[in-house]
């Protein structure tokens, strides 16, 4: 792992997210930036995958349960080589490979279609259980939003995972503190999240979701211990991370930058 390299990649992901959402005049940049470092570590250091062979039998699986942050996933997949970067410009346009929310029938590298929040962890459980049946040694990663954890289904899945001892399942919670209507602490309090997950039988890791080194080492520890417990990585993040005027500014949850804001943002990213 080369931290400097990964940092550069995560900056590129951020820049592509901002460019493609501004060009599409819609989309969700805020939560895409909060998860950019996590995605970078997964796709460029941790996941066993092959962009030239997306159906590789032994591959690790990544599910973006918070599907509205598709632009970050598309940026990562495009930079990995799952499809041409030219597709970025077609985001959200009629007939595009890149739909507003991830669509496994249209985009190479998207394993599971999402967009309706609350579904991803259950599907992850299913894939993890299937892998156990086959004796397939691989890991299943599911990235959830903190607002998304309001959904009851997340907790039904959490119970299933520990009941069936799915230690090949890693849930990552992008704890950026915001959902659509405001701060998660004001809209629907999910804390204490760590204690809830522990009470559900999960092994919990709490990390800084922008510290590339610690993200990577946490995933290595989490996947290394086959102790019958599912792993939850609570990643403390900043919504809009990387662009000063977007950080913790929730209007960028579902509103892209205007052209002049975009050039300011891209300059800032260059200097990071």
């Amino acid at each position: 792992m080369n931290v400097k390299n990964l940092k550069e990649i995560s900056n590129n992901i951020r820049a592509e997210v901002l460019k493609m959402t501004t060009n599409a005049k819609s989309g969700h940049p805020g939560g895409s930036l909060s998860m950019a470092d996590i995605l970078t570590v997964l796709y460029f250091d941790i996941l066993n995958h092959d962009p030239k062979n997306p159906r590789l039998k032994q591959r690790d699986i990544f599910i973006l349960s918070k599907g509205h942050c598709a632009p970050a996933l598309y940026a990562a997949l495009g930079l990995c080589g799952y499809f041409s970067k030219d597709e970025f410009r077609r985001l959200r346009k009629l007939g595009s490979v890149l739909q507003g929310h991830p669509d496994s029938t249209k985009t190479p590298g998207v394993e599971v279609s999402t967009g309706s929040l609350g579904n991803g962890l259950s599907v992850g459980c299913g894939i993890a259980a299937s892998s156990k049946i086959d004796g397939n040694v691989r890991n299943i990663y599911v990235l959830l939003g903190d607002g998304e954890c309001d959904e009851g289904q997340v907790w039904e899945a959490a119970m299933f995972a520990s009941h069936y001892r799915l230690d090949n399942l890693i849930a990552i919670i992008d704890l950026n503190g915001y959902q659509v209507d405001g701060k998660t602490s004001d809209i629907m309090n999910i804390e204490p999240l760590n204690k809830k997950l522990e009470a559900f039988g999960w092994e919990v890791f709490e990390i800084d979701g922008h510290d590339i080194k610690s993200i990577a080492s946490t995933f290595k520890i989490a996947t290394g211990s086959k102790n019958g417990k599912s792993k939850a990585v609570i990643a403390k993040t900043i919504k809009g991370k990387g662009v000063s005027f977007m950080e913790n500014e929730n209007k960028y949850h579902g509103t892209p930058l205007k052209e002049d804001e975009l050039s300011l943002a891209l300059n800032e990213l260059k200097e990071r």
Partner: protein
Amino acid sequence: MDYISGRESYGRVLVEIGENEKIVVLDADVSKATKTSYFAKKYPERFFNVGIAEQNLLGVAAGLAVDGKIPVASTFAVFATCKALDQIRNVICKSNLNVKIVATHAGLTVGEDGASHQSVEDISIMRSIPNIVVIIPADGNEAANAIKQAVLNYVGPVYIRLSRFESPILTKEDDEFTIGKAKVIGRGSDLTIVSTGILLANAIKARDCLKQEGVSAALVNLPTIKPIDRDILLGYAKKTKAIITVEENTKIGGLYSAVSEVLSESFPVPIMSISINDKFGMSGSVEDLSKYYSLTEKDIVSKSLELIKLKERIYS
């Protein structure tokens, strides 16, 4: 012409009727998008944001209704009707609870968000559940009038389907809205266009085009799909002997089905459909999507001409 979205009208009318202290509004973390945020600001003590938890949204609304409140619950149509369907069916409708479900972002006109957010089957789903009234307003004024009726003057479950899209204002602010009654927009003798929801704008344009081609089309706006206005449908079936239905919903189980159900057992005539043909939506601009899914006025015109030919063949 003025434009307003159904959700914007909804937000404003809620504030207007909000002084009625029985009204309690609920939302699932999309109040800024459904516009229940206006009510939340004015009457915070009677507003509940349940977070991203649609099943709980409808369950809590049911409880408020059990205790005599008039709960008005909102989220996007796809999540209200698909995620929380058990709560709507087994808790609200089975006990005939006085819950108003006002769902926004219905139909393909959600646009760029794509298939996961485009509700194209909610009319079919909601219509199939006993006890619930299903209303699809054609514009902002009709939305406001329907909501007032449903909340203040009707007891029982109601589903109101609104859009995100800013559509033209076609009806009058002081038009009377009666649940279960359709409205004749224009008379005609060769065929009848029956439209529900915001596609009425396209239907009106199509009727004008048809007139120029020498075709006399009647136009009926049918906002309440359940209970359906049988009298108007039978009257126009007898008069024009050909019907074309127009809806922003899948062909299966929506307006086309509802009209067919009425006519096939009472006065069968050929019926054709402008609708979504058993497909999911996709990302795109509203304009591109209308063309791709054949929902434009041009599509209504060509389908109408096809229908006239079929009618001539049948009755010749």
